[in-house]
């Protein structure tokens, strides 16, 4: 599954070839951390398998919440800018 995270990462980096887009950087950082540094969660001498799962799952939970939150934030920003534009036009 983790390797499929590379698909949005590749496309987001490709988009940067054409358009300058600062907001993509945070997603690129999050995805890069996920696909490159995830094994660090496993690097310890302890063998408690449950603890390993928790570390992975907490990272994923944070990223899922961030994904949904950033989407709603984007919609809010769009609505607000639309409203402001309307007020200026009035």
């Amino acid at each position: 599954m983790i390797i499929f995270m590379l698909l949005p990462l590749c496309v987001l980096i490709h988009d940067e070839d054409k358009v300058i887009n600062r907001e993509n950087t945070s997603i690129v950082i999050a995805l890069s951390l996920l696909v490159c540094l995830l094994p660090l969660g496993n690097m310890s001498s302890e063998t408690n398998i449950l603890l390993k799962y928790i570390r992975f799952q907490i990272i994923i939970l944070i990223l899922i919440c961030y994904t949904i939150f950033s989407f709603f934030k984007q919609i809010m920003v769009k609505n607000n800018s639309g409203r402001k534009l309307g007020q200026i036009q009035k």
Partner: protein
Amino acid sequence: MNKYMKIKANSKVFGVILFIGFIITTICMQLSHGDIFAEIFFYDTLDTGMDFFHSIEYTRGRAPYEVWNTLYPPLANCIFYFLFHMIPKSVSEQWADTFESGIGARGTSIDLRVSQTPMFLFICYIIISVMLIWIIVNNYYENKKTSYIMCFGIIFNYGMLYAYERGNIVIYSFICSMMFVFFQNSKNKYMREIALMSLAFAAGLKIYPAFLGFLLLYNKEYKRAIRTVIYGIIMFIVPFFAFQEKLSGLPIFFNTLFKFQNITELSYNGFSFDKIFNTIIIPFQLIWKKELDVELIITVGQKLNIVSALVLLGCGFILKKIGKKLWHVVWLWLYFQIKRYI
């Protein structure tokens, strides 16, 4: 910030993080004298390339579903059956007849890994995948530096290395998905059609890349979506006829798939909300020394799965950039996947 500074910055982020991971892994390997390897990768150190070698074994007798209850879709089994025919009979006749004895044979003289032909096929399987990644990525990026960083990053990231260690066919499913994502809007009409077939092939190998088909719906390309579904059905159903079970293998395959998903041992194993809650609840119970209503929490998690899946799916119709649409679609897979890493 000018255009080229930005290109450098964003692909550099990926490259730098990958490099840091590489350095830390190397130090840990040195300090532990390689013991850390089993911590990072699959715990069974004798069974490297298991998904490749055992899958070839399971196609002997052309009854992978009835006899071996394999989890691979028929298209994947067809590829392994093709490889099976390249292995000398003197080798394959010695193979174990049951799943347990097959696993138990690792490290013995009948292990596929000690024979020249299967081992060589495995090496080719890896080399071809690396070459395909190199070709596809180099065709996608206009900037050479970016394409080198991305090639290196795709081949040496944790998920891919884990898939190589397992010999899992997800590598090829990923490559085909990459073909679809990169070339679905190509100017060349043949390339666009190949991209659709690639998606169907990817889904035929691992099923869940089928979610990528939503990208076509988001772009309102309904005719292409229908064609992809037709390709997908062909690539999923037709390969069943290569095996003795024929279409009766279909319910066996789905039964095995759902049985595997419901194994209680794997209840922590997954990234859906119910699985995450099921795991996180344990330390909370230990800290508070209080019994929590596990069933209720899991039910809430399951409902949250559906709600967040619908939100993630709906996002694609509103978002404009393909990268972000993809990000949301890929998250959706998390709720349906069984295994953790790959």
